[in-house]
């Protein structure tokens, strides 16, 4: 852990060297992802609800997903751009060091600038939470914390899975972006609004439903079964095989560069 923070400090210093550029990029990152929320606000301006979900409920599901993805892209950037490591052959260098390999991959690249997106997601979450119609109690707060954590788990799992794929193909696969970005875009909404097939997909194949839909139902009181509090934890089950597959893939890794 302390090793990670050391890396983090180095990367931060490195980016702060160019102060003006850092500030500009910080602001522009903030702007770029504003587009997502803009769509939502526009649509709720015209429609009062989406299948019974209000604006703030949708903003909550949105914020949870955006928080998870931007958190992983900021702090685990290395795994997201893993194919570069493999193509350059610098993965070999990491293998030589007597430290946990996944940790080293995480640290390899950190994009401190993207913190602005994490901030943005937090702001949206706060706005949603202030306005949402929920009777807060200990159980509901727990649900919310689980939701936020599970959002990080699921994206971390997805990134690791995609990275292990590089062991077999060397080059990262563009199709994976389609699958992850596309499904992420959909899962930003409460998935119950979509047709049956999608609900099944997001429950059993990519379990986004457990991140922000099933617990949301409990939060807003549509479901009262206590099981829903712990539903986000199912994403851990998704994370473990991802890590195993990564190590399995590493066994058959042959270097690509010099």
């Amino acid at each position, binding site marked *: 852990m302390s090793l990670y923070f050391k890396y983090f400090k180095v990367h931060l210093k490195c980016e702060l060297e160019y102060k003006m550029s850092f500030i500009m990029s910080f602001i522009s990152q903030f702007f770029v992802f*504003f587009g997502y929320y803009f769509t939502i606000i526009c649509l709720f301006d015209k429609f009062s609800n989406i299948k019974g979900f209000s604006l703030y409920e949708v903003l909550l599901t949105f914020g949870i997903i955006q928080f998870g993805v931007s958190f992983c892209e900021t702090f685990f950037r290395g795994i997201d751009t893993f194919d570069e490591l493999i193509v350059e052959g610098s993965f070999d260098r990491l293998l030589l060091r007597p430290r946990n390999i996944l940790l080293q991959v995480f640290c390899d690249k950190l994009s401190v600038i993207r913190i602005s997106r994490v901030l943005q997601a937090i702001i949206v979450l706060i706005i949603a939470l202030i306005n949402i119609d929920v009777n807060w109690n200990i159980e509901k707060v727990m649900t919310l914390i689980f939701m936020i954590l599970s959002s990080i788990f699921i994206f971390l799992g997805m990134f690791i899975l995609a990275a292990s794929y590089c062991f077999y193909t060397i080059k990262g696969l563009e199709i994976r972006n389609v699958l992850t970005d596309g499904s992420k875009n*959909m899962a930003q909404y409460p998935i119950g609004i979509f047709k049956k097939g999608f609900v099944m997909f997001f429950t059993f194949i990519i379990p986004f439903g457990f991140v922000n839909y099933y617990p949301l139902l409990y939060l807003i009181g549509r479901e009262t079964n206590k099981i829903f509090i712990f539903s986000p934890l199912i994403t851990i089950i998704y994370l473990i095989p991802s890590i195993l597959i990564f190590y399995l893939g590493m066994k058959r890794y042959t270097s690509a560069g010099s």
Partner: protein
Amino acid sequence: MKSYLSYFKLKFINGLQYRAQAIAGIITQFFFGFVYISIYVAFYESGSADLPMELSELISYIWLSQSLFSLIYLWYKDKEIINMIKNGNIAYELLRPQDLYLMWCHKILGDRLSKVVLRFSPIIIVALILPKPYNLNLTSNLLINGIFIVAMILSSILMTMLVVLYHVLCLFTLDEKGIINIFMVTADILSGMTIPIPFFPKFMQNISNILPFRYISDFPFRFYVGNISINEGIISILIQIIWIIILFVIGKLLMNKALKKAVIQGG
């Protein structure tokens, strides 16, 4: 003139080589089209009193914008040109007896056209055979088709002018991120790529109406699906032409100014 055309051809033929990339692009566009449509269908099923577009119009709009996406999206950086600006190789370009501005225009348009040629028809064909209400509705009205084609040609020129303008601005900032990104994302939203203009709040609609961006994608597509009348369409085409001239002049002047005090980075 001939030399510029050969830049265009060079980029065009070069772009056609990337077929695997095109397949990935087609799948992406198709998938995203489906995602957007699912979201809109859910909204429309929830019902609302006064909606600016019919669902079928909106779905056709989405398919048109997805199939022509690689031609009209405004979030575009030409790596080659950016690299040239950053590493100073632009000096070699300046030695050529050609106008740099026109050269960039031809290069960018050639690249963009090659991409859309590969991606356009598969998406349209699949969108046509999808079951209702997810399908694309074509119109048989010859006049609308004719005006649409003219509008699309003009909008691709307008797109080129804007994209070249970003790159000219890069000559000043020497950085393709930061302010350029903000500019690009604003243009992207105001062009109606993320959501059609009629869904904007009123004041944003007014803003987008006086800016050139909506004439790139929002206008031609909404015209085609019948959301804009023929009279308004013809007026909009004239506005497109005016914007092309304005942006051309601005870009050219800025370029001249930038080159006058250009400092070559590196040797």
